[in-house]
């Protein structure tokens, strides 16, 4: 009885694994060919959408050794961490991060840093009092020079 049960479990596992394999392979023509046809720039546009565009604009306007204060309504951190990765070595701080629980987050907010660029993503409010020299709007974001 127990031997039969053990065998049934493994047979069901093999069945699921086989279907999973066929299903995964079928994704290549169904879903993945849309990625294959794209070049690197198009892939980044598709995967990262407006964050990639913000990064490209920042690369044009941020001076070496300068930093960026990023304001976003995205509380998951995806927008911030992606922009921070793409823009590095430019240091991007999450200026309106609400979670103060630990020192790491206080560092991520960049509270004592003076940056000459602020970015408002998804119409997030920019709550610093610094004067604005110039500003322009791109898809999904407002970039401000102080």
């Amino acid at each position, binding site marked *: 009885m127990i031997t039969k049960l*053990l065998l049934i479990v493994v047979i069901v596992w093999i069945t699921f*694994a086989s279907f999973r394999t066929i299903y*995964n392979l079928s994704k290549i023509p169904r879903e993945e060919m849309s990625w294959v046809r794209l070049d690197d720039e198009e892939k980044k546009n598709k995967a990262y959408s407006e964050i990639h565009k913000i990064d490209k604009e920042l690369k044009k306007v941020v001076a070496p050794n300068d930093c960026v204060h990023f304001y976003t309504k995205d509380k998951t951190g995806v927008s911030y961490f992606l922009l*921070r990765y793409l823009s590095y070595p430019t240091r991007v701080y999450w200026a309106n991060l609400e979670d103060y629980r*630990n*020192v*790491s*987050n206080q560092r991520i907010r960049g509270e004592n840093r003076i940056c000459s660029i602020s970015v408002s993503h998804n119409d997030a409010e920019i709550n610093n009092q610094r004067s604005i020299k110039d500003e322009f709007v791109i898809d999904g974001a407002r970039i401000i020079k102080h």
Partner: protein
Amino acid sequence: MIIFPFIFSILIGWSILKMMRFSADTLSILGYSYGLGLSVIGFQLIFFSFLQIPWNIWIIIVPWLPLILFTIAKNKYNFKILKPKLGLLEKILIAAILSLTLFVFFESSIRPLMAYDAWSNWFLAAKAFYLYQGVDVSYIQFAGNSSPPLISVMVSNVYIFLGNINEQAGIYLFTGFYISILLVLYGELKSMTSRTNALLFTFLLASSENLIRHGGRIDVGHADIILGYFILCSTILLIKYIKQADFRHITLFALFLSPISLLKNEGIVIALVISFAAIIFSIKNKQKFLVLILFLLITSSPYILWKLFHHFYNLPDYPLFSSFDISRTFEVLINIAKELLNIRRWNLLWIAFFVFLPFALKGKQEKAIALVVLLINLAYFSTYLTTALDPIEHLRGSLDRLLLHTAPLAAFLTGLLFYRKFKNSKLLKS
């Protein structure tokens, strides 16, 4: 040449294994060599960084060249290509495993980096360390990054070899660990059971959606598959040491145990669990207990060095723990059970593991593997009772990744127990 850093890592690992006269199936040696090579280069780069020596390709290659050249010269007549006679079932299984491996490789080639942890941590640190040519303390302060550095240093090593920040090559590093897990699992299961059984369980593990996702699909770039690899290798080497307590096996066990604590924050807990299992079985077998303790202390030295560095530069700490809350137990258990039964992510891997688990009590080696899997998962269970975050939210966002750490080992044990139970079947004979 995008493949060059990986070939060089394999050559280093292979040379070390040959120097240690480690004998195992050729494919599993290839699998062991990959992770061993990458981890020793990682240690080398971290050590150079502590000494303020800036990284470049020559300081990686030159120290290893004599060993590699000597090993190649010594083994140049030892390469054999075997053509085994395969049955139909074996051919089908090999075709399925190769299809899955090619699928994972294809998936890792078509998308840019998509994993959250990769952007927020591993690949960002790799970029920063590469640009700084060392472990950059000011970057760690800026990013509020509390993770140990080994994974990012491994990715930096790939960038150093290629001379630029090649994200695609960094992604392939993780795909390499998917393949290496399968190679080690196959080779070791084959030597302990039969070829058909080894192929069957390699296929069953290879087709787990969660492993595929971390090997090359959406989740590639998370550190967990690398942790899964080192847990698998170190535990298999532990059971070899239990069987044959000699200098060679304890050294190899230590070489694979040592990187674990520098991969992720939870790595130190895992390293302690595996060390605990080693001590228990060493006492039970009346083996040389003091030798083991000495090796475990040597194994922990890179972690101690990192902690001193961490303390000296006042680097950020891991902030997730608060007090122990026993009232969460039931809710946490229910959600863990849901994840274990999640067929979309695991097929029947965890169900089969628990169904076969009682039979592990019969063998010494099987008991050791079961102990490691259960204790690591017990440690994760206790994490959810102490987390400072909402426990269920934390669990839903992390448990699938934590279970990946022990999934290859769980598949290995299930394969072992399945064979013990059905070894008289004609299908498993070859």
